[in-house]
């Protein structure tokens, strides 16, 4: 049986709780085990890296040290956490002196990190470890005619491009196709949503998100599927502001890719927090009604 050490990250506790709920529900429906890393802490995000690098890596490594003792690979759904945890591993493997310093800091908490625990994104886990063909077999309600813009964002494919092509990743496309949905042509699939710029440089971030919404609409998507809490919040939560600033009338649902898979697997929308979205994905929810019949 597949099993992973689960690292939800801070966003999935609150703003991205629908992501957390849907990942847990989908993994459970597919029989993939998730054991939450006990008392996990913030990965440091992009913020700590701007202040003190060694502290950022040391606190990030605390999570990896706990996962190491669980003997499992880590599953990190938040793209930012995913990249930070992977960068921590890379940094530790790069220079023995850095590893030593980080371990000295960890020792202050009675921990040590001596191996390299692999950190994985659920898109990769589902597409590769579980397998697209196996997923196809589990579909209860094929999402025929549902057009989805697959939006990968930055940090799944960059900076290292180890799980997919950096220009044209396809793993999420394959997952969506496996459950009967139609991934539309979406040229900005790896463009940046601005991330934290929505807080610090709103005008810049609004423009980036306008382009992402426009491309989805132009290509006939019923909704955007994301794999990152910040992308989802910017695209959905600031849609009203974008409409106001640029005189548009977008009303485009922005779900997590796991929501699309979950509905096809017969999971109820409320069980995945779909009722918490600001723009209800009516077309997706309609399949849930069909699935019950």
């Amino acid at each position, binding site marked *: 049986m597949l099993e992973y050490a689960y690292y939800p990250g801070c966003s999935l506790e609150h703003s991205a*709780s629908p992501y957390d709920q849907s990942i847990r529900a989908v993994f459970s429906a597919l029989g993939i085990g998730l054991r939450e890393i006990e008392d996990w802490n913030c990965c440091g995000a992009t913020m700590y890296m701007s*202040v003190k690098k060694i502290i950022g890596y040391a606190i990030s490594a605390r999570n990896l040290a706990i996962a190491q003792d669980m003997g499992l690979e880590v599953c990190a759904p938040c793209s930012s956490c995913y990249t930070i945890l992977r960068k921590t591993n890379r940094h530790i493997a790069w220079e023995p002196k850095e590893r030593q310093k980080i371990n000295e800091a960890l020792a*202050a908490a009675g921990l040590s990190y001596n191996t390299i625990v692999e950190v994985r994104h659920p898109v990769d886990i589902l597409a590769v470890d579980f397998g697209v063909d196996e997923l196809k077999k589990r579909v209860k309600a094929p999402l025929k005619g549902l057009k989805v813009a697959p939006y990968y964002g930055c940090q799944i494919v960059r*900076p290292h491009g180890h799980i997919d092509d950096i220009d044209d990743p396809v793993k999420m496309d394959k997952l969506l196709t496996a459950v009967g949905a139609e991934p539309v042509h979406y040229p900005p699939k790896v463009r940046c949503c601005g991330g*934290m710029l929505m807080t610090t440089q709103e005008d810049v971030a609004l423009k980036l998100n306008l382009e992402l919404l426009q491309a989805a609409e132009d290509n006939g998507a019923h909704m955007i599927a994301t794999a990152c809490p910040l992308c989802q919040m910017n695209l959905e939560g*600031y849609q009203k502001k974008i409409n106001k600033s640029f005189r548009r009338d977008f009303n485009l649902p922005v779900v997590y890719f796991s929501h699309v898979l979950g509905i096809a697997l017969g999971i109820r929308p409320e069980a995945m927090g779909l009722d918490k979205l*600001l723009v209800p994905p009516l077309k997706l929810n309609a399949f849930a009604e069909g699935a019950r019949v």
Partner: protein
Amino acid sequence: MKETIMTFPKKEADLRAAFWDQVSSFPDGEKIKLCLQCGTCTGACPVSYAMDITPRQTVALFRAGHIERILRSRTIWLCASCYSCTVRCPVGIKVTDTLYALKRIAMDKKIYPARFPVHTLSRSFTKNVYKYGRNYELGLGLRYFFATDFVKLFSNFGFGLSMIRRGRMGLFPKKLKRVNQIRAIIKKADEFGEA
């Protein structure tokens, strides 16, 4: 022939020393020396249009001895960390990581752009982590807007309220059970005295 040594004013010389220190402290950091000024980083950057100094120009300014001008620009604080430049650079310079290095120098030396208090967000964030062990979204947002842009606090009120109504914005922070572990790690790591 006698080697010509370029000398910088003391402040610039200190900043250069800090910079070289920083780029030697992450993988491939020293590849910055290979920059051929092609401008691919600037072309790949989704926010370079809004920068006062482009990513390519930061390297040119560094070479010309103007690190302080880079730190006083908005550029390093506009980077959203999307890594487009990093994957595109033809000589493999870690542009994003280099901008992080410059942010750390700016924080350490307290050299910031005028009327552009973006760095306070990072500072607030680290305080949250020390206090709770996790990020506290609502607290972070409130603290940031109070400190920087009071008007934004109101313009984001509707968004905040709709998130709270749907249970997507925690009113209270979630604290680690063993938050003392985090604090001990932070204190110990800080003893290394690195920026």
